[in-house]
């Protein structure tokens, strides 16, 4: 009773609230729409599409989901187009508003995007849509369920079933493996069939072999699902195949979606207006007041902004500071003590410029700047993702290629062309030696093979695993080269940038002939397990001397093996003969022995009657097994064992031919389907190769031609690469020079190095960015030219000191009113430790050096003869990171590192203070200081400061240092007085001195000045 009363009251209150709301909301928010004051009345009955819904959508949604523009491929103009939906599937589900994205998005305030009170839909309008969908989402006179769904055959095409076959069948009945002569990739292939006849009978699913084999679970073979990365075909999939065959197996009317001369409905010209999507502009060098301070045009741009904020350049750094800064920047190493002395003594006006030239000519330069590139491409020496973390046998070739390219100052366009499409630049033949140029072309494509990759083994080599590899690679391409967060568009159109999902898939279509999730190359690992695999992911080409070395070794070992085997056979025959004689003596009467010998020598089919009789009587008894032979002749047994061991060792030395880890076009790619919400099980439209529309004028088709006459290769990537390196490309050059700038100046002109889109940062100096871009072009895209410009600018030469005025006016150094003080990166620090200790082994290139892991988890690069090589050559196993690198922020490549972090944590202090390697290197450093006989403590301090800090010591430092060393020595002597007595006092004194120096050096490498660059 009470309950009912409450209910009644409740209902009344709700009505009241509703009425009040209607009045207020209706009056304000809806007033502007054609709905007008009828809203409340309309709300009461069934909403009408044309009267109630259409005007609403027209006002709020059509701008982006209408006739000209169809964001997310969604057209909201008709019920049919809503049911058809966009890239995320249907926009409405008739009768189920809560399952309808249209309602969800509007209700949650996600649409219209960035809505203001003016553009947002009112609660009442939202309710209206809810009710309209709830009541069946009908269009007048036309029940929604029947909309354009009359003839199922009409909407079918070969692509109704092809994705199913690609997922589950074509791995064995496709491009490379053609079991039973059957190719299921095309309708023609299905009709032609294989050894057992046509795969399908159009119109008759029951009698189609394809359907029958699947129905009885004969295909795909259940026992081999994992080996081939396929799943059993589901009942739904089978039903789809049946339906399509029964409908006559229509080929259908379809064309891949590619850019045409028609305006693009998904991206507007307004979208293209954003600064980063416009080509770099010609800019005039600004006029500034402090013209005297200007070293080159860069300074004019920087000074202009400084002046506009009442600032000017900081004073120039002192010479030693500038030299140390430039040397670390360009080589990643500190200058040696001798270089510091020589440089400071060189007082010619162009001393700095000449020093820069020396740095740029050093082979260490390529190692340093190659490292920056390896970061953005995500270089690692292992595959990651799986526990085994498979070693990439040929990964180092790409690393060396990058170093070489920087040392040669390869023009940046060529550098990108090679990495994106090196295989299409010049013809090559697998299994041969190639020229250095072709070698570089092919090795460069390793760029597209950097992503973590678990697909070398069955359980992680299914289509989604492969798609993840491709997605990571697209992410790398986007962040490293294009400055776009492309990966967002894998599942839906980009939230911030005008990159429709279609454009992501067009891009994957560019790579399809090499990266085909339905035609995935087997790994070397699998090839080793199964002899039948012919084509693997490593390309067997190499430089002539490598091929010759490999061939020579192979021939040599094969000959040795053959010789050893024949020697073994001879020995065996002899040993066997001895044993046979013994048995003869034992088992056969003397008079028959000669006849038996004849019998044994005669092949069975040539024996006459008498010999056959003898054989029947004695042959079995006289036959000696290998085991018996080994037991009765120890000497032979030992010989045989040694021979087998040796042969195995030789066999192991016959490796597979030297190969390249690259990417190459294999022609004949599968179609590229857009995957709804990124799910490979919901393939949508077919797209062809293309580039992001927003970076084009939207009216120019993407032209693809075979790279050379008769090429098997599609030419898609070459076309893409040529587009990427176009002079007027809005992003490629800007993104690259912004990175170079960052590595000299601490942060980019665009602070978000990998994101030039709307969610990224705006350039702090847009004109400077464009001027640099055009100057870079003018200089033939030479990176070294760019370095010269940057490091000789007055901006770069500024001091890093911060005054109270600077801290107040430019706290973030947003205007470059000074140079930032920077911490050495993990690699710079490691290399610097090796340099001051004089333990750096200069042996560039080749296979990386191992990292050893101690039981407690400490991982350290293993020493080689003479010391250690640069950090660049330490093996970069994803799951075994040397502790030093881990602690000092060496990046985990997941999949790449567009910008390193630079943390300050307690473990860094602990590491430098307590680590055994740092201690060892401090000892070496001390030995270097003590090497010239008869040096005083003051001289040693002077030398140590020159080595560690790259400058001359002050008088105070000389005194303090000498005093510290004296104290250390006294204390050491006091502690070791007892054991010192037994030895030569002079020797003890020397030891004390050495230990004291070592402590001093350890303190130096632990100090802030060693770790930071001004």
């Amino acid at each position, binding site marked *: 009773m009470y309950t009912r009363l409450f209910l009644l009251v409740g209902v009344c209150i709700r009505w009241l609230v509703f009425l009040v709301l209607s009045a207020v909301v209706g009056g304000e928010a809806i007033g502007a729409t054609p709905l007008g004051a009828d809203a409340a009345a309309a709300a009461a009955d069934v909403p009408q599409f044309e009267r109630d819904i259409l005007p609403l959508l027209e006002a709020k949604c059509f701008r982006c989901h209408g006739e000209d523009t169809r964001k997310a491929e969604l057209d909201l103009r008709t019920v049919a187009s809503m049911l058809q939906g966009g890239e995320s599937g249907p926009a409405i589900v008739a009768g189920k508003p809560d399952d309808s994205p249209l309602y969800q998005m509007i209700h949650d305030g996600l649409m219209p995007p960035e809505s203001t009170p003016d553009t947002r839909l009112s609660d009442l309008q939202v309710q209206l849509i809810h009710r309209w969908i709830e009541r069946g989402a009908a269009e007048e006179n036309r029940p929604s369920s029947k909309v354009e769904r009359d003839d199922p055959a009409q909407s079918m095409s070969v692509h109704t079933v092809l994705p199913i076959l690609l997922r589950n069948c074509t791995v064995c009945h496709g491009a490379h493996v053609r079991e039973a002569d059957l190719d299921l990739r095309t309708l023609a292939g299905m009709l032609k069939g294989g050894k057992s006849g046509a795969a399908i009978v159009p119109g008759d699913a029951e009698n189609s072999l394809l359907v029958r084999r699947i129905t009885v679970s004969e295909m795909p073979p*259940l*026992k*081999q*699902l*994992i*080996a081939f990365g396929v*799943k*059993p075909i589901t009942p739904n999939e089978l039903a789809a195949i049946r339906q399509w065959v029964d409908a006559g197996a229509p080929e259908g009317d379809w064309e891949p979606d590619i850019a045409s001369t028609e305006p693009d409905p998904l991206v507007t010209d307004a979208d293209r207006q954003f600064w980063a999507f416009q080509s770099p502009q010609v800019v005039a060098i600004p006029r500034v007041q402090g013209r005297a301070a200007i070293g080159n045009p860069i300074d004019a741009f920087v000074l202009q902004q400084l002046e506009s904020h009442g600032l000017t350049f900081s004073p120039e750094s002192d010479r030693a500071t500038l030299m140390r800064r430039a040397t670390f920047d360009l080589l990643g190493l500190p200058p040696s003590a001798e270089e510091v002395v020589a440089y400071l003594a060189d007082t010619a006006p162009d001393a700095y410029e000449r020093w820069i030239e020396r740095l740029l000519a050093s082979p260490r330069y390529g190692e340093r700047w190659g490292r920056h590139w390896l970061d953005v491409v995500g270089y690692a020496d292992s595959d*990651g*993702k*799986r*526990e085994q973390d498979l070693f990439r046998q040929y990964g180092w070739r790409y690393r060396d290629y990058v170093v070489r390219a920087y040392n040669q100052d390869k023009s940046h366009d060529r550098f990108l062309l090679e990495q994106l499409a090196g295989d299409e630049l010049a013809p090559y033949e697998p299994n041969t030696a190639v020229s250095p140029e072709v070698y570089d072309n092919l090795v460069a494509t390793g760029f597209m093979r950097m992503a*973590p990759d678990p697909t070398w083994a069955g*359980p992680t080599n299914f289509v989604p695993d492969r798609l993840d590899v491709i997605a990571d690679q697209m992410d790398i391409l986007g962040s490293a080269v294009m400055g776009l*967060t492309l990966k967002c568009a894998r599942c839906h159109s980009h*939230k*911030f940038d005008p990159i429709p999902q279609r454009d992501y898939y067009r891009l994957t279509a560019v790579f399809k002939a090499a990266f085909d999730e339905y035609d995935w190359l087997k790994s070397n690992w699998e090839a080793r397990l199964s002899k039948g695999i012919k084509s693997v992911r490593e390309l067997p080409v190499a430089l002539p001397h490598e091929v010759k070395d490999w061939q020579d070794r192979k021939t040599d070992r094969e000959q040795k093996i053959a010789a050893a085997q024949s020697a073994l056979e001879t020995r065996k025959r002899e040993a066997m003969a001895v044993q046979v004689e013994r048995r003869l003596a034992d088992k056969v009467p003397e008079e028959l022995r000669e006849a038996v010998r004849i019998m044994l020598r005669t092949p069975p089919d040539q024996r006459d009657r008498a010999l056959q009789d003898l054989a029947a009587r004695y042959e079995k008894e006289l036959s000696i097994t290998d085991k018996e032979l080994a037991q009765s002749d120890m000497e032979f047994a030992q010989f045989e064992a040694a021979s087998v061991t040796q042969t195995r060792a030789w066999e192991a030395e016959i490796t597979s031919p030297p190969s390249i880890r690259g990417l190459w076009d294999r022609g004949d790619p599968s179609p590229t389907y857009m995957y709804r919400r990124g799910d490979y099980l919901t393939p949508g439209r077919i797209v062809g190769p293309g580039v992001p529309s927003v970076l084009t004028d939207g009216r120019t088709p993407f032209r693809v031609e075979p790279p050379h006459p008769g090429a098997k290769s599609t030419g898609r990537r070459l076309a893409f690469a040529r587009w990427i390196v176009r002079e007027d490309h809005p992003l490629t050059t800007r993104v690259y020079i912004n990175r170079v700038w960052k590595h000299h100046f601490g942060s980019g002109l665009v602070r*978000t*190095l*990998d994101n030039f*889109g709307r*969610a*990224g940062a705006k350039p702090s100096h847009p004109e400077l960015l464009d001027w640099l871009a055009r100057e870079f072009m003018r200089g033939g895209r030479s990176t070294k030219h760019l370095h010269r410009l940057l490091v000789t600018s007055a901006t770069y030469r500024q001091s*890093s*000191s*911060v005054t109270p005025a*600077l801290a107040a006016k430019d*706290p973030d150094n947003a205007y470059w009113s000074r140079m930032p*003080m920077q*911490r050495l990166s993990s690699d710079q620090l490691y290399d610097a430790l090796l340099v001051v200790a004089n333990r750096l082994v200069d042996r560039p290139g080749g296979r990386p050096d191992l990292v050893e892991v101690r039981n*407690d*988890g*400490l991982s350290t690069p293993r020493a080689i003869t003479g010391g250690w090589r640069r950090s660049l050559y330490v093996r970069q196993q994803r*799951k075994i990171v040397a*502790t030093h690198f881990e602690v000092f922020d060496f*990046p*985990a490549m997941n*999949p790449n*590192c567009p*910008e*390193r*972090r630079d*943390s*300050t*944590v*307690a*473990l860094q*202090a*602990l*590491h430098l*203070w307590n680590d055994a390697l740092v*201690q060892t290197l401090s000892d070496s450093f001390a030995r270097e200081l003590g090497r010239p006989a008869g040096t005083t403590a003051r001289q040693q301090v002077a030398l140590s400061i020159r080595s560690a800090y790259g400058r001359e010591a002050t008088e105070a430092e000389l005194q*303090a240092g000498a005093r510290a060393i004296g104290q*250390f020595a006294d*204390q050491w002597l006091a*502690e070791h007085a007892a054991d010192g007595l037994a030895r030569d006092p002079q020797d003890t004194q020397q030891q004390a001195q050495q230990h004291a120096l070592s*402590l001093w050096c350890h*303190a130096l490498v632990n*100090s*802030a000045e060693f770790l930071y660059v001004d």
Partner: protein
Amino acid sequence: MSIESSLHRRGFFQHMAGGLCGASLAWLLEREAAGIQHASPSAPPAFDLKPRSPHLPVRARAVIHLFMNGGPSQMDLFDPKPMLDQLHGTDRFQKFAGEIENLGSVGTIMRSPFKFAQHGQSGMWMSDALPHLAQHVDDIAMIRSMQTTNLTHEPAIYLMQTGKMGPGRPSFGSWVVYGLGSENQNLPAYVVLDDPLGLPVNGIENWQAGFLPPQFQGTRFRSNGSPVLNLRADVARSAVLEDLERGVLAGLDRAHQAQRPFQPRLGARISNSELAARMQLEATDALDLSQETAATLESYGLNGEKTESYGRRCLIARRLVERGVRFVQLYINGQIWDNHSGLESGLKQACARTDQPIAALLTDLKQRGLLDETLVIWSSEFGRLPIAQIGAGEDPRTAGRDHNKNAFCCWLAGAGVKKGVVHGATDDLGFAAVENVVTVPDWHATTLQLMGLNHEHLFVEMNGLRERMTGVSPARVVREILA
């Protein structure tokens, strides 16, 4: 509300560049320091692990996560299936083919070699492989309907630890300490106690901070010897000489800093060196088990050969939680739960190593009143199949079970968790969860909720996107098991 604003400030000011490999702490430091520089240039940076108020009323103050990687067999431990006895030996290959990793060794339906019984007031079923845990059923909430999306260890473990099937994202513990900070500034907020015998699958990636700053990463504590790597000098030095050197170093750094005012990073570096020194004391103390009674050591099994190692880690976990460590994660070496063969003996051994220590941990926490504020989680990455894994012609006693992503069990105990409840159910064979299915994102949302964190509000903004632990997957808090 101040609770909200303190966390939201954390959530919102971090507009990170997406490409940063892990957020740049120094960058954050500079941002914060820049804001305070005008007032006091020497003020310490504010980005740290100071305790923060959660979104929601606090249930658990700390977490002890017992990660049982390998895939413990649910139908042999927690989820009895009498149907398996009836159907023992029958063939189900066709039905399961697409869900089997090792197609070369597919056997028939296999009954459990263990006996199940009901325990406690709640009458929860548990097999006789876990006699000690069976005494605690009235303290735990059992989820029998867990499901994941991959049947291979690595991706499944990544998913369980980070919410995504690959490396590169913050681990569960990192999210928790990012959201809540730590109550002890002298110890890491997130401590990992890995097995001295070896790392789990995915190794150190299990506790990485991904795109969060590195102080949210798990710090490995060794349960023997020096707890933290490089906490003590690798090459022995005399204390006096070390102090002398420290003095010299301090002099060098003072002179360096004096010439460089307004460089917050130099200050941060010095305060971190001080933290390193404090950590040295406190971490050593936390691991000093000589402070425990003989009875305690005995109860954790420190005197038993099989239980010593895991027992030690369980006991250390309690000591860390007592000291205000937010998140402690225990691992076991290799794959002791991955019983592809020898299911019976393998499971017995795995239980023999862990059952008593875990039960002792629950008892100990309860006695000290810590269980009310500590969440204990027992979980794995997937479960196992109801059919045997065995090669043709092999001895049936060597049979194991292959991986199963469609059903597995997890349990929780302690703060905020209902006691003695079972949630969800699997089909008659235990092949797939069918009732009240709990997905991995559901599980993450639930455990975060127990820590007072709303999974939708705990995020880092990157490239304009709010990156959350549960990502874009729909996630539901399993309220049925919340007290």
